[in-house]
């Protein structure tokens, strides 16, 4: 890589950096980011360290709560609830008692949905990568579930999973798909897989398209079987694209709200962290802010692990690519 234009660009970048003008050019973006991202994030963190307003017994009116220290966090993490009898362990029927189950359900959804979607998406991408008549039509058709708004998808599946809905009729079963513990979780997973697999497939397909055909031809000449070609060529070369797809979907699923909220709202066996946050906002916004921060840290930690340990990289710079090749 020694093209003169690249060298010229690098020289320009260096000059800008030394003269301090670079900051001038990115300042508007930084200000915009500070306003739309920085401010709400700091506001949420600040809120999470204040108490929610409580009732002044003398007047029956709400008064500001003041500083909370870490009590909003311990409320969730240690399941402590204030009560008429001092601090008690949160009883069932309070949002506080559902924190760890919500974490478990969220992680369960993430692992199951992302694994199924990655496998199915890989299969679909392999099929769509082949050359055959009607390929363009197939690629367009596959996108339909992804193009439907999630709220609509959730409603559709809710209708299908109703007690006298099409699913029970076709299977000849009498399953309560929206209230039974495992059936409702299955229903949410099924709807999400149906909706999001095409998105996975397209991301993986993009990765497939950049693998040069001559690599496969060389392998064929050397007598590699189809399975060997898949394991030793496709998978390693597909890894970057696959990991980006998995990273995106993992972060999406950790925040999942709309599908379970519309299909099975109120059912404790599908309450995810985001549903808990939304319900808590109505009872006390500051405590909800603490829960949001906890959720953010969880998503961040898992994304960090994916990036650092597995090498998922959503932003591959030219430098990275040069190093890799």
């Amino acid at each position, binding site marked *: 890589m020694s093209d003169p234009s690249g060298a010229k660009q690098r020289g320009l970048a260096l000059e800008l950096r030394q003269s301090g003008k670079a*900051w001038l050019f990115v*300042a508007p973006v*930084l*200000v915009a980011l*500070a*306003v739309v*991202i*920085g*401010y709400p994030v700091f506001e949420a963190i600040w809120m999470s360290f204040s108490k929610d*307003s*409580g*009732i002044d017994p003398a007047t*029956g*009116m*709400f008064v500001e709560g003041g500083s909370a220290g870490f009590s909003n966090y311990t409320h969730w993490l240690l399941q402590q*609830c*204030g*009560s*008429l*009898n001092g601090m*008690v362990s*949160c*009883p*069932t*029927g*309070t*949002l*506080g008692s559902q924190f760890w189950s919500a974490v478990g359900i969220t992680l369960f959804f993430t692992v199951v949905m992302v694994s199924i979607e990655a496998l199915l998406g890989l299969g679909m991408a392999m099929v769509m990568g082949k050359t055959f008549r009607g390929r363009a039509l197939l690629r367009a058709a596959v996108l339909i579930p992804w193009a439907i708004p999630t709220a609509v998808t959730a409603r559709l599946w809710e209708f299908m999973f*109703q*007690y*006298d809905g099409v699913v029970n009729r076709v299977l000849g079963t*009498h399953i*309560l798909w*929206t*209230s039974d513990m495992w059936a409702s979780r299955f229903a949410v997973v099924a709807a999400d897989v149906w909706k999001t697999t095409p998105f996975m497939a397209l991301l993986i397909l993009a990765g497939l398209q950049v693998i040069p055909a001559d690599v496969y031809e060389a392998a064929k000449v050397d007598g590699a079987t189809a399975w060997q070609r898949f394991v030793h060529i496709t998978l390693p070369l597909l890894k970057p694209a696959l990991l980006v797809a998995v990273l995106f979907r993992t972060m999406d699923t950790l925040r999942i709200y709309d599908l379970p909220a519309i299909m099975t*709202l*109120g*059912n*404790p066996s599908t309450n995810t962290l985001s549903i808990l946050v939304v*319900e808590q906002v*109505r*009872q006390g916004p500051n405590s909800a802010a603490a829960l949001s921060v906890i959720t953010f840290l969880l998503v961040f930690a898992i994304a960090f692990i994916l990036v650092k340990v597995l090498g998922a990289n959503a932003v591959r710079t030219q430098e990275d690519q040069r190093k890799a090749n």
Partner: protein
Amino acid sequence: MALKFVPRATMAAASIALLTATFASGCSSDDGGNALDQNLTGRGPITYVEGKDTTETGVVKQLIDRWNAAHPNEQVTFKEQSADGTQQHDDLAEHFRAKQDGYDVVALDVKDTAEFAAKGWVQPLEGNFAIDTAPLLAPTVASATYNGKLYAAPKNTNGGLLYYRKDLVPNPPKTWSEMLGQCQVARDNNIGCYAGQLAPYEGLTVNTSEVINAFGGSFVGADGKTPTVNSPESKAGLKVLVDAYKNGDIPKEAITFKEGESASAFESGKLLFLRNWPYLYAQASADGSAVKDKFGVAPLPGDKGVGASTLGGYNAAISAFSKNKATAADFVRYLISEEAQQIIASGSLPSVRTSLYDDPALIAKMPYLPTLKESIASAVPRPVTPFYPAVSKAIQDNAYAALTGAKSVDDAVAGMQKGIETAGS
């Protein structure tokens, strides 16, 4: 976040931009003094806020047109919210939290009234704002009263009715045991016996509190704070519901029913008895309903006599941040006047004035009115508490656990008690 590389000047610029943006977004009331003591005599155009008007006659538009014809200098504008109760609450809360003066008179769901009162968002109706509550149904006035003060005027009310198949059961049951004793009729006809709204949402709170109140239980004491639910009466009430679900008198799928699903089950002839709101009467009498002319309504069943309906409906309140509170108070008084309540009742919304339930013209149009009057007369408001969302959650989560068999009835009632204890903290 690349924030750590941002030089101080940029951060300063950013924060100044932020501050101006925050304050330019309009804090409309000056923070000097308490909003509740300001603009008490203001007159001028006002805005009335209510959820989506679903009445066939367009009740709200009629009400406002009449008012506007008579008050050219104090015109009322209608701000229509969505049909979803939760969104209505959140929209109002956002406006009030920001101290916006754009909403002058707001329609509050009965269950939200105490919360808005305790937060200082709505004017107490005393002194110049006092209203005459004598002609109104007593339970509706109780639903708008918090801490001994009236904070809103009941605008329209709502009570549960027992819909029954008069072609199969000529005499409606008065008590739970009588009703469940007639379930053999349902089994003979291969339909479900009883259903309500037992999906885990606000409707489950309503259904649970109705059966607990019917058996003499209660949720909070007279002070609105002390939990009183852990009693033998409450356990007896919840047990009736849970046992009926376990032995199949309440069909298995009823645990997924909200208002809509339960209504369509009754309309398609799959239920012998259904607890629902009055709106279903017109719907089930319409062409295309399988039970047209085959059903009647009765007051909800109780333990030894008529049961206790849970009160629904809306209360009209004056915003603390309104600029024209005198006009707002006049408009609130107009909403409970005979004239306005006639319009409300004609739109099939249950009126709050006692006299209208005996009006022959209205009864001809809505044959269920005498039954509804009986139902509302014995109605119990939902717990009047500023922490209603948490209280409701404690009730519905535990009731749902008892129905699904995850908890025993005794544990569920004890759980409600504990949940209500932690609600205010």
